């Protein structure tokens, strides 16, 4: 069992000495650098909660449910597909998320919050370009994903009458 001391000590020395905790060299950003067009980062401002990455696959829980005002439920894949589709088609000209209740609250590792949103988006696929405004509120439930050290949206109820820009079946007028 003398081998036990080497089994433990060698990886520790290796971990400290070969730069495995150093980041790789990132490419210099292109002009088309992907941002956070819907400003999802700001829905958690001042809450003490966070998204580790602003990438939809990491932001939404595996079983995320989106519920529209009529109570229709949609899954995560449809929700994300629509976000990608709309952000490529629309120029998001204004986004604001503000608190819509006195206080957000946490129960166990679930975080409940309401947010008002005001979004102005320009459809660049039509001539002339057409502006849309979406102004209403939404309820969110988030849970902490300890594996990824991030909060995940796993429930989203939209109260926009009709189809908001977030609606998985959102179709712009032509």
């Amino acid at each position, binding site marked *: *069992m003398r081998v036990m001391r080497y089994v433990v000590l060698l990886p520790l020395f290796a971990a400290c000495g070969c730069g495995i905790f150093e*980041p790789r060299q990132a490419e210099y950003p292109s002009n088309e650098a992907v941002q956070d067009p819907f400003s999802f980062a700001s829905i958690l401002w001042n809450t003490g909660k966070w998204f580790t990455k602003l*990438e939809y696959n990491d932001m939404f829980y595996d079983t995320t449910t989106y519920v529209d005002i009529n109570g229709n439920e949609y899954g995560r894949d449809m929700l994300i597909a629509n976000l990608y589709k709309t952000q490529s088609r629309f120029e998001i000209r204004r986004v604001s998320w503000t608190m819509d209740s006195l206080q957000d609250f946490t129960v166990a590792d679930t975080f409940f919050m309401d947010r008002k949103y005001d979004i102005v988006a320009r459809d660049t696929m039509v001539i002339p370009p057409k502006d849309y405004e979406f102004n209403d509120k939404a309820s969110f439930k988030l849970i902490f994903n300890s594996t990824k050290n991030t909060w995940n949206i796993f429930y989203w109820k939209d109260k926009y009458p009709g189809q908001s820009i977030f609606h998985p079946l959102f179709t712009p007028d032509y």
Partner: protein
Amino acid sequence: MRNIIRVTIIAAITAWPLFGQAGEWPFLLGIPRPAVATDSNRTEYGSDQNLYIRTFKAKDSLAISKNTASYGFNQNFDFELTNDSWFDTKDQYFDLSGETIKKGFPLGISAGLEWTPVLLLKQKSSLQGMLGSVEAGPVVKFAPLGIPISLHGGASGRGINDSLTSISTSQLGLLQRDKGYYAGAELGAPAKPLPFLPLYINANGYGRSMGTSKLLAGTASALFYYGFPSGDSLFARYDDSLTNGRDAFLGQAQGKPHVIDDPEKNERSYELLAGIRGKPRYFFIPGAYYSYSEHTLSYAGEFGNRKNTANTVGAVLKTDPLFLVSYSGGITLTWEREDRHAFFASQTSGGSNLPPNLFMIDREGNVVSLDDNQGYRISMIHSLSKYFSNGMGAEYISDISRFSKDYPNFFVVNGDTVRRDPPLDNDIIINRQKVTLVPIPSAWAKMTVFGEYSKNLTNYIRKEMSGNNTIDWFYRVGGTFDATIFERCTLSEALSADAKVTRYVFPETKRGKPPPYSRKLSSLAVLDAAVTGWLNLKTEWGETYWDYGTWNGREYLDSSSLALAQQAAAYKDYYAIVDKTWQHSLTLSAAVRLFDLCFINAGCSYQYLDVRQFDQVTREYSLTNYAGSRVSPTASLSYQIGPQLLFKAAVVRTFDIRDKFWDVHVSLNGAF
């Protein structure tokens, strides 16, 4: 139905990583402790009613167990109700499963019958859906060589309907019906080793064949333990779970209750885990382990096939309690891979009609996808502490981790390389340091102070995403102070101050979009007075301030803003506060204890929230309409009605500037 639920839950659990975090010995590599034996002749009753805002939940259960040397009998009555008036939904669940066994047949065999009738009702507005199932058949139990084995099987039936307007006997006759048979088996016990080997085995299988569907599900685990004469220990474990086939469940589609047919799928998870743990040497206890896990999910002709594999090696080290200082730490390294094969080539005529992000053939002829990814995780933690016998001491924790991910697949069109969009190849590196000191440890006054620092780097590799690369710094200092100020009166205070600072790695791509910055201060003082042996008074006073804004560094100014600055050369970086929030709270409560049987707690909390936002026109912080007060009177009662019957009730009424709502909880639990 109950078997499916049980097996599915176990399968879900075993799909999670089974090893602990860095610095901890994997909890599954331990000798299982036998469950605490309970009286097998008892009746348990539980009722739990809960109303919160607009959701009412009720859970009632009754379990009757009778066991003698010659027979055994179990009958459960379970009822669950969730009524959500916000979404106008009502879900109900009934389970009347049970079992009766006659013991004492030759060779130690027991035999009997089991039954599992289950009914699910789901209602939304005037629309209803239901799913009822029943399984019933013989059960045989025996234990050759001390290994418990249980076999069961029988007839299975199911009735489904959705969007019913009402449930009545006449309409039940119109239900879609399905019938078939089922069989199941259980072998071994998770906390009982085999009589001739230091091996713990447990396997559970269930199969069902009905007119419209077939389902096979099962889990298995085996744990081997061997203690060397040197004092070191060897552990090896294997866990497996499988679900094959299809099932129906009650859900919602397009807002209406519907019986949803789960598509036919094959899902399997298994993991091999082995480790060796040393005996204390030179006051140190070492350990090392290795794990391989694989999870596959495939649908028959459907999109979404996936395979995840992971290899993990880890090493842990901790000191013997007799050592001068206490140390524990470790390192884990995981390399993992995810393959997303949307279709197999044979199912898609070679896949030529599919877009390249779903289907490609690599040089070795394998089906690959742009979403395939590989990554590695490494984490290392060290914890060092020293506390003297009087309680004075210090503790230091260093925790660093890295998670790197790559999407290696690409194709070339007209000379352009096409990768996953957006390309998420990245590194996330988190470095945390925390120091805790206990300078005043006495019984009448104790003080603890701490400081915490964390640096999080998000580093996207590809140019399309690297403009979002950030470094977040998080700082926290704080402390607690507890003192006995009079004979029966204690005062405690907890203070903390936080700051979070973000910097973009490429600020030139964020002109006009300065990074966020926030601060927070919080204080909580608690005065606790034991007035008499049965009356306790408590006062809690909390104050919290936090602000949020942006760090307007010069490097984030766009050219027009810089031009507008009166003295561009003299521009100084500053913290622009966008909003400020103060929260004041006060809670007064009294607790009464009567004859150690009844506990009553009553009080009231008041909270005022002052939220101000910066007004660009007036250049002042103006009160927003989110500001306001909240009052919440509360009362709770706990009463031990008898030696085996406990009643609890709690009620909170909240008056908000926008709303008022109830939070009511009543429960009664007993066992006879």
